[in-house]
């Protein structure tokens, strides 16, 4: 146990040291920029991100002094970003001091440093900040701008808008049609083209009709360049760019649309340390999680905003009852409805956010466990973690812990052999264990792979027959995947003797049962002598994800956007036939063309459908197919719900989402599409371990 703690701390320190390094570099840059008399917002954002990560890490590992330090720095820098503090020497010096303290803490002087951290904090308290603005006084009326655009501004955007107006930078309204299927890309492209001349303050998609493949996006930009120059850098077809004139008459009207800062209760900066909060998730094994006080403060703010809206609604109802003209009231009612919608969305987001934890922490703990296990057996194991910045709901972290623990034990215990044995087999003495996690849309997928012995299907089969777990008559008829599923049978192990850790035969069964119970699924691929790869997939449940909506016949399906590599334009002359299937040449090689209806086994009545104009390139790992559907509808953020246990054998879909239409939208599982579409021989044996 102590050993594991040590390992954890080591990981923590190395990661933290990296961040502190980066922070020092960025601060130096900031100082240079400040001397030149400019404010580089990108840099400040970067610094804030580092400080924030540091705070999260420190909080997680119980490094109190470090967490406080990071928090104090955050408190100092945030007003800078929002323009409530001007950048000057008195501001750039303290962060350097703070970073010096961090170095002190990292080199192990926790006790002595705590004192100096306290001193440092009192130093920071002396820096005066401008108060939070009481409703933005600068932002008045604009003619020709969608009021919704203004009402949706974040505090940061509001501040930037205010600054631009103050400095007399002309504002423009830009309307551009963007292709729905590649909206994010096109927006990025747009920003980049504008960047040398203009700042994009905010943007908002306009409502569209259902069948359109394009979306009109309205952007608010600020620029000192003439409109012709902007047009020239944009070079965007059908873009409409118009200068915005301020209109003081409309001041009051627009003013009411802006979020009213004065309706919020004052902040309480003193109480912002992480605190323990009751957590009532059913599946979770630990009933408490750490929630930052700031999150709770934000929730309190939101609830009071909600009750403000409620009062407003009650007053409107009263006015209606008193006989006021309903038409006059309808605008006010609409506004109230809109702010209600915004507040509820914000509330949902906050609540979900406060439940999220980085998955990296869990994987690091497990990696440390694997090392401990390996050491006890005199084996050498190198653990590789690929998880990125994935944050998942706390329930998922807890749900994954035990199954992953079991898989890692299996891998170390009887996957990876001793250094001597490995050398005899011509392998590197050090075994490799890879933990890889990703979130392709509606699922959290964690893969555990090793380059060890691998499970022999024949051995599994033999054991299963021996123990009477499989009917001998049926045994011969099992398909390859079914044979591999034998590994999940309770009481089946390929080890002759049960050893201390795994090998009791119940391991894989437990993994499978737990994962299925959570609406997920498990797949195992194993090659004797080369290794085993187990993939666990759990529905991400509380995490909304972006999906591409597809139409096939009368029905719509959703495909996680993370599994969509690109949308290809199809030209019939480019389609080639080979071995009875159709292929198309794409930028990354030839792709098989597959119709969704054949993958799903749906009968289409009558005529063969013509080739659609588009194909969706679906990617799963290194495998790609070009999927054919009737049409693309567009992108949406959706929240999918997993099916119940009774549908656990349905692998084509990870769940369904309710988009308020007549029927639910089924969410396609990319792995299934690719697996069903590719030829059998590729299905199992390609890249067990790449």
């Amino acid at each position: 146990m102590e050993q594991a703690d040590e390992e954890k701390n080591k990981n923590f320190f190395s990661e933290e040291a990296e961040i502190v390094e980066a922070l020092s570099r960025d601060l130096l840059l900031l100082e240079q920029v400040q001397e030149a008399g400019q404010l580089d917002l990108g840099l400040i954002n970067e610094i804030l991100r580092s400080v924030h990560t540091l705070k999260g890490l420190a909080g997680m590992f119980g490094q109190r002094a470090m967490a406080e330090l990071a928090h104090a720095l955050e408190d100092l820098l945030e007003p800078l970003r929002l323009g409530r503090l001007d950048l000057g020497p008195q501001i750039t010096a303290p962060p350097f001091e703070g970073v010096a303290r961090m170095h002190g803490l990292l080199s192990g002087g926790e006790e002595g440093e705590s004192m100096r951290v306290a001193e440092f904090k009192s130093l920071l308290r002396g820096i005066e900040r401008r108060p939070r603005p009481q409703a933005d006084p600068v932002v008045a009326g604009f003619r020709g701008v969608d009021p919704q655009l203004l009402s949706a501004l974040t505090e940061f955007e509001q501040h930037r808008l205010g600054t631009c107006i103050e400095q007399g930078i002309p504002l423009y309204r830009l309307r551009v049609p963007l292709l729905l299927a590649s909206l994010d890309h096109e927006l990025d492209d747009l920003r980049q083209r504008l960047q040398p001349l203009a700042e994009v303050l905010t943007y908002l998609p306009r409502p569209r009709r259902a069948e359109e493949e394009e979306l009109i996006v309205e952007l608010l930009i600020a620029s000192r360049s003439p409109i012709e120059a902007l047009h020239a850098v944009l070079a965007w077809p059908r873009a409409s760019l118009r200068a915005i004139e301020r209109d003081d008459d409309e001041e009051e009207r627009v003013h009411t649309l802006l979020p009213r800062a004065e309706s919020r209760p004052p902040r309480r900066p003193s109480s912002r340390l992480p605190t323990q909060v009751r957590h009532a998730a059913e599946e979770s094994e630990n009933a408490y999680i750490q929630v930052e006080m700031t999150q709770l403060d934000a929730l309190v703010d939101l609830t009071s905003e909600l009750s403000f809206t409620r009062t407003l609604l009650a007053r409107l109802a009263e006015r209606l009852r008193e006989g006021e003209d309903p038409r006059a009231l309808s605008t006010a009612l609409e506004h109230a409805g809109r702010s209600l919608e915004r507040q509820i969305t914000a509330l949902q987001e906050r609540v979900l956010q406060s439940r999220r934890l980085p998955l990296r922490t869990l994987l690091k703990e497990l990696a440390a466990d694997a090392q401990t296990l390996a050491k006890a057996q005199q084996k050498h194991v190198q653990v590789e973690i690929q998880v990125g910045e994935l944050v998942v709901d706390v329930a998922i972290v807890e749900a994954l812990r035990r199954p992953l623990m079991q898989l890692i034990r299996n891998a170390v215990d009887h996957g990876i052999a001793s250094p001597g044995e490995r050398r005899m087999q011509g392998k590197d003495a050090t075994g490799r264990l890879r933990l890889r996690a990703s979130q392709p849309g509606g699922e959290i997928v964690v893969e555990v792979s090793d380059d060890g012995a691998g499970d022999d299907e024949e051995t599994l089969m033999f054991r299963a027959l021996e123990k009477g777990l499989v009917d001998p008559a049926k045994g011969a008829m099992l398909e390859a995947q079914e044979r591999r599923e034998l590994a999940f049978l309770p009481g089946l192990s390929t080890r002759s003797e049960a050893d201390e850790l795994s090998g009791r035969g119940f391991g894989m069964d437990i993994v499978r049962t737990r994962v299925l119970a959570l609406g997920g699924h498990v797949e195992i691929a194993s090659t004797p002598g080369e290794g085993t790869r187990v993939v666990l997939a759990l529905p991400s449940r509380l995490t909304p994800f972006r999906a591409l909506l597809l139409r096939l016949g009368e029905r719509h399906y959703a495909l996680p956007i993370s599994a969509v590599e690109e949308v290809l334009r199809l030209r019939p002359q480019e389609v080639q036939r080979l071995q009875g299937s159709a292929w198309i040449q794409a930028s990354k090689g030839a792709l098989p063309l597959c119709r969704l209806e054949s993958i799903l086994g749906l009968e289409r009545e009558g005529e063969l459908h013509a080739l659609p104009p588009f194909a969706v390139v679906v990617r799963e790992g290194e495998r790609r197919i070009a999927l054919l559907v009737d049409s693309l509808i567009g992108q949406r953020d959706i929240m999918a719900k997993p099916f119940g246990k009774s549908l656990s054998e349905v692998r084509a879909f990870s769940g369904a989402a309710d988009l308020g239409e007549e029927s639910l939208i089924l969410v396609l599982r990319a792995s299934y599409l690719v697996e069903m579409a590719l030829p059998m021989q590729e299905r199992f044996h390609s890249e067990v371990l790449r």
Partner: protein
Amino acid sequence: MNERRSLPILRPASDPGALALGKNEGKSNLPQEYLTFGLAGETYAMPLGVIVEVLRWSPVTSIPTAPADVLGVLRVRTQMVTVLDLRRRLHLAESAPGAAHRILLIRQEGEIVGLLVDEVFRICRLASAPMETTSPLRTFLGDAVLGVARFVDRRKVTHEAVDMRQIATTEPLVLILSPQGLLRPARPASQG
């Protein structure tokens, strides 16, 4: 929306019809109360305890690649409920759902599952009575069947037992279904 679809189950205080079923021979290891419902002109029953709610028929979303007796999924409040077509599950003739059709929501192993039935009749109490043989049905429907019962006139029921031959065979037979058996898919042992 969903609230309007739900129909409260009423328990008549004194039901003249009691349900007679064999096999429990005075021991009460079988549930006491049952809900009866119709399927293809026949009468079926299910233990009341597992029934969570009765919904009016509303269209479900069918799922390609799902087993044949799965009608689709339905969102009931926050849950995604799998709906089985009980006619298909019991190998009866199919029919298009209409206004009288109901979906019984039952709780089984922590999951709520919907069962489509033609119509819902009433709640009945199970009396202890001699057994009627169920073996031919069991070979056909397996674990899905708990037993067979018949409505009896309460006035003819004596304290201890009922002589089945004395009861007029004009009352319909009732097939009592096992929720557990119904949901356990009929598949080879390799699936655990």
